[in-house]
């Protein structure tokens, strides 16, 4: 397992080091991930699997500290090892109070990594501030700041004992490292002199405090509050208890939600940027996840698609610079990362090179294409760049570290199909999974959703000035649009996609926008079988007349299966210009050149009533209802969050979830788990379900003439072979393609057929269509006899061709009790010599094991445990590449990449150099101290 792609599942904390220019993200499962320049990434995992609450980089060091929800602190460091940097946990520490003290006494609420790099200040729930030494994480008891010491210096009448409960914020003075600002939850703010251990100033806020931020020169700071207000405070030598300069409720006058974090950034032109999270009017916009940016008269409230975890501003960290001059805002929301360019007028978003939200809409299938020809690659990129014009051209602002991994050896595409009818094209060549192009099939159909829904239709005087940002949109307008199968021919640029409602679209790459009519054909897979009634969903309505398509893949023909059941298999042969598709009822072959249906074959067993009734039939209904109830929960969870907003109810939701889980568990325990032992029979339901389709030019009829053929395998262990007659190219449009059934093989063990493959005379798998024409493959050996490999869930069987007689088999289930889930031919090159490579089968079983099985002798070569066997969605989502790598989903939003090949390995290899540690930083700091001293 090499690298994780996509967006971390359930992020919980964000940190940034302006010194290293690295960003850190912590998750609920205790993972911590560091990202810098594209390709620079590190990952660490806390042993405890606890939620990461806070992440703080130690200034000017390659170190960071994480706070987990079990109140433990962990110190991580980046060290160079063997030419590359590695992230390692160095120390761990849990703050312990005196014996008998309540746990709240040491519950850490705020962490300040001091610029001296030697100490961390830890604010606690009790109001006491503890000091620990870095990097050893030892408590320096003599330096702690007890709340009593603070209280002594405050006039009695202004506060009571409770004012010093819970430290909300700790901020170091930007110029004088000996001064820290302490904000207590009840509104009291004090400026503490570390040298003399005394309060120099105190500020009496009337509202519950949320956060603090210093102005760059240290003459003012800003506080934000629970009631949605923020306040500026002056810090001067003449007044020890200053009054607020300005108190604003930006979205008043009605009650507003809390502002939980605020930045104040100075600029050369004098107008500061005030950037804060939250503060929306409670009644009407309380459900928004917003961050507002105010700069002079410009004000925008960025409206995020999911809860904002945290954000930071990238600004000039040069100590010598006089102004902050913010360049970008980086926002970590629960489901995506959004970066806003603050320098370009209009504040456009920046296209992130990594951390893409794979799950903008739920992933329904994926397809990997290796070694894309440069021409197609460029055309896809150019189509994609036309879609991305609204993005900022700013270079990626988080650019720490150096990627030292070799350039990827080839261009690989990963295509993901989504529930909302889109196909996303990802650059999967390297460590960064990067979105190249997004294709939507929605335009072909009429849906209820108004296409203008997602547009920014905000008028001039809209208040608050909300602007939607981000792409995460899990709610599909119509689940029938979901993409189920994808097939891309990398040589011709033909793409076939098939969806949930039996729709099959064939597309062609066009570099220009175009408006045309999509041809429409129906394939009745039941073929006048009487007495069946489809109880499932209806087919999608198509749009009449010409449709406008943007540059990129444009559909030119739609084949609609009848009944409109989910398309379960798809194959495209770009040389013969044929597309084959299968559902639970049968399969069909369509000539997309002549736009003519060649034939359909019904695979239903007459007794199989269930398959006809659609997705709500008895067998599936349980699964379905479970999934629906989960979806309901998910939806209600999100909406409840929206309703109440904030992070406060997270625990409630968790509780509710835990309760639900428990209930579900109990229910399961009540029913005794038992399994029926029964041989499969022809009468089992869903035997007609077409699992696999395969085109091959082979000896189907006799050993002297080979011909194009189409192979189909079903759930009931039947393989159908059709002989095709494809007219030669010059008469391709004049003569029809003909097909004739040549063979039907019934595997006696009746297990579902998951793969069909023809091996040529040299026992190499037949090349892909057009591969030979592009000189990328040796032409297949048509002299020697061909062999047919049929892979069922239980066995591998090799048959001779054209006489289908069993030659060889490997039983998997009978011997090991595991079943084949995915199988692909993979080419394994030697890492030592370039000229050796072999083709083997890469097999994923239902136990999550990966096995490599040799061709053509079917010998088990090696077996790795890969995915947990309980991780059903991980196993279901696995795709293999042609060169022995693979991807599977470890969460709805992340692909884990693994490699079975020694030759093709994509993993992050990067180096983080300590930037020149600026001695002048210290000098500057010193002078700052002097300045401050002189001022006072």
């Amino acid at each position, binding site marked *: 397992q090499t690298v994780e792609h996509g967006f971390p599942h359930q992020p919980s904390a964000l940190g940034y080091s302006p010194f290293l220019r690295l960003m850190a993200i912590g998750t609920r499962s205790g993972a911590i991930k560091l990202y810098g320049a594209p390709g620079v990434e590190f990952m660490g995992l806390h042993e405890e699997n606890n939620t990461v609450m806070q992440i703080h980089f130690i200034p000017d060091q390659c170190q960071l500290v994480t706070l987990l929800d079990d109140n433990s602190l962990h110190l991580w460091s980046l060290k160079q090892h063997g030419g590359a940097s590695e992230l390692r946990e160095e120390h761990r520490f849990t703050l312990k109070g005196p014996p008998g003290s309540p746990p709240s006494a040491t519950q850490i609420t705020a962490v300040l990594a001091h610029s001296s790099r030697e100490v961390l200040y830890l604010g606690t729930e009790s109001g006491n501030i503890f000091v620990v030494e870095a990097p050893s994480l030892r408590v320096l008891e003599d330096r702690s700041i007890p709340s009593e010491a603070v209280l002594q210096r405050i006039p009695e009448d202004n506060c009571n004992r409770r004012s010093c409960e819970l430290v909300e914020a700790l901020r170091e003075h930007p110029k004088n490292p000996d001064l820290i600002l302490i904000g207590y939850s009840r509104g009291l703010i004090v400026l503490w002199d570390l040298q003399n251990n005394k309060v120099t100033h105190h500020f009496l806020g009337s509202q519950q405090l949320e956060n603090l931020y210093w102005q760059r020169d240290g003459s003012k700071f800003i506080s934000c509050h629970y009631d949605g207000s923020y306040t500026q405070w002056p810090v001067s030598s003449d007044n020890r208890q200053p009054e607020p300069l300005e108190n604003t409720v930006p979205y008043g006058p009605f009650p507003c939600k809390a502002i939980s974090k605020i930045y104040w950034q100075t600029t050369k032109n004098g107008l500061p940027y005030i950037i804060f999270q939250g503060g929306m009017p409670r009644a009407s916009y309380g459900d928004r996840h917003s961050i507002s940016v105010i700069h002079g008269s410009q004000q925008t409230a960025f409206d995020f698609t999911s809860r904002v975890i945290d954000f930071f501003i990238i600004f000039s960290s040069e100590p010598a610079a006089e102004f902050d001059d913010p360049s970008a805002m980086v926002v970590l929301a629960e489901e995506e990362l959004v970066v806003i360019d603050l320098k370009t007028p209009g504040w456009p978003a920046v296209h992130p090179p990594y951390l893409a939200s794979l799950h903008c809409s739920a992933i329904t299938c994926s397809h990997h294409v290796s070694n894309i020809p440069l021409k197609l690659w460029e055309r896809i990129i150019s189509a994609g760049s036309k879609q991305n014009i609204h993005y900022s051209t700013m270079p990626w602002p988080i650019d720490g570290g150096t990627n030292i991994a070799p350039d990827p050896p080839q261009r690989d595409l990963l295509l993901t199909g989504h529930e909302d009818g889109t196909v996303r094209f990802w650059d999967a060549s390297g460590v960064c999974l990067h979105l190249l192009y997004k294709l939507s099939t929605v335009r072909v159909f009429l849906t209820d959703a108004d296409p203008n829904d997602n547009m920014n239709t905000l008028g001039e005087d809209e208040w608050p000035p909300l602007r939607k940002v981000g792409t995460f949109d899990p709610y599909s307008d119509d689940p029938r649009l979901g993409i189920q199968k994808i097939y891309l021919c990398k040589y011709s640029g033909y793409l076939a996609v098939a969806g949930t409602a039996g729709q099959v679209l064939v597309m062609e790459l066009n570099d220009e926008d175009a408006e045309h009519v999509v041809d429409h054909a129906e394939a009745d897979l039941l073929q006048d079988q009487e007495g069946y009634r489809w109880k499932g969903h209806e087919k999608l309505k198509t749009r009449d007349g010409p449709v406008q398509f943007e540059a990129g893949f444009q559909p030119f023909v739609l084949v609609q299966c009848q009944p409109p059941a989910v398309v379960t298999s798809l194959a495209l042969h770009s040389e013969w210009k044929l597309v084959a598709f299968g559902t639970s009822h049968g399969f069909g072959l369509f000539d997309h050149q002549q736009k003519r249906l060649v034939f359909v074959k019904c695979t239903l067993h007459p007794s199989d009533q269930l398959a006809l009734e659609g997705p709500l039939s008895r067998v599936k209904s349980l699964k379905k209802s479970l999934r629906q109830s989960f979806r309901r929960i998910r939806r209600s969870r999100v909406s409840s969050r929206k309703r109440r907003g904030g992070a406060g109810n997270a625990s409630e939701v968790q509780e509710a979830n835990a309760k639900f889980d428990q209930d579900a568990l109990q229910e399961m325990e009540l029913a005794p788990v038992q*399994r029926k032992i029964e041989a499969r029979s022809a009468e089992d339901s869903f035997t007609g379900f077409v699992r696999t389709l395969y085109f091959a030019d082979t000896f189907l009829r006799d050993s002297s003439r080979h011909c194009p053929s189409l192979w189909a395998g079903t759930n009931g262990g039947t393989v159908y072979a059709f002989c095709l007659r494809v007219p030669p190219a010059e008469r391709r449009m004049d003569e029809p393609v003909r097909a004739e059934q040549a063979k039907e093989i019934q595997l006696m063990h009746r297990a579902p057929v998951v793969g069909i493959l023809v091996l040529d005379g040299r026992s190499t798998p037949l090349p892909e269509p057009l591969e030979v024409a592009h000189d990328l493959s040796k032409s297949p050996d048509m002299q020697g006899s061909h062999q047919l490999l049929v892979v069922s869930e239980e066995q591998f069987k090799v048959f001779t061709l054209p006489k289908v007689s069993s030659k060889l088999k490997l039983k998997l289930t009978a011997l090991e009790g595991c*079943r084949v889930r995915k199988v692909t031919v993979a080419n394994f090159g030697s890492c030592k010599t370039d000229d050796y490579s072999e083709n083997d089968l890469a097999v994923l079983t239902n136990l999550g094991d990966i096995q490599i099985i040799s061709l053509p002798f079917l010998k088990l070569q090696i077996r790795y445990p890969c995915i947990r066997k309980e991780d059903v969605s991980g196993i279901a989502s696995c795709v293999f590449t042609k060169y022995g790598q693979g991807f599977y989903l470890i969460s709805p939003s992340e692909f884990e990449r693994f490699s079975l090949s020694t030759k093709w390995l994509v993993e992050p290899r990067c180096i983080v150099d300590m930037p020149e540690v600026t001695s002048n930083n210290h000098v500057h700091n010193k002078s700052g101290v002097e300045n401050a001293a002189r001022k006072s």
Partner: protein
Amino acid sequence: QFGAEFRRFSLDRYKPGKFEDFYKLILHIHHIANLEVMIGYADVHGDLLPINNDDNFFKAVSSAHPLLRVFIQRQDEVDYSNFGTNTLSRKKKALVTLRNDNLRRRPHINISMPHDFRPVSSIIDVDILPETHRRVRLYRHGCEKPLGFYIRDGTSVRVTPHGLEKVHGIFISRMVPGGLAESTGLLAVNDEVLEVNGIEVAGKTLDQVTDMMIANSHNLIITVKPANQRNNIIRSSRMSGSSGQSTDSTASHHSLPTSHMLQNFHPDEMESDEEADIVIEGGLEPQHIPKLHSLTSSSLSRINGSSLSHRLQRDLVLNNNSGRESNGNIHKLLSSLKTDPRHSLVIPRGGIEEDGTVITL
């Protein structure tokens, strides 16, 4: 006569008529009107079943798809114990020695012989297993009954170096009334499943064991530790006594009872016990068919080569003696016959290699 002679003729599938007429037709076609013969047919599973009255004649015709293969034997040579098992190839051997005397009895008088019975289960390897274990083989072959049992997770107590320990085990949880498993009487609820077709289930999950059993369902051999041990001991001692005389236990490879090998499994048996896949060719010319028919047979006689005939003779000898022995012994013998790969006539492996087609459209 009665060597390899083949005739092809057609009958009206839906109105096959009376057995008497059919019998006469057969005798007429084969020009053997002066002989008393026994007519048998190969059913869909390759078993040789008799045709001796209207009922089974009708069944034979209606189950034929599309060819009904009829075998004619002289009455006096019929070995009734062959019926109901995969013994078609044996029959051919039996035909080698022809005798000339006539017998007068009509076949349908023989009601005492097991005409239409097949084994449904057997206990095997009794001599090598511990007495507390039982290895049961279920023949689903040709049987309409479902296997009919359920398994569940559970715990059993094992003796380990660290003393008694509770370990995870797989148990039979339920029997389907009327199912094969129940009808054998050899398996019971709460029996612990130890092995499936010679592979230990220890360390495997319920789902894995389920998949293994289903994958082996055509010839399922499960080793159980019966919940009711008292009953088992009585039975097993009796069984081992009789099997001591049978040939199966004299198999050359003796090993410890704890061995994972199934003693009744010959190395290639794992392969052979399975029914072969059916290949249907489309769009073939009709004149192909007669050729195929003869090809199948000739290739068959060819592959029934020397080693096989040796074994068959041995089995034959045994069979002659078996009249004295217990019924269980016959079953065991039959099972060993049945599992030999080269005995299955319907789709002999060699036959497929020869011409690739068995069932023609």
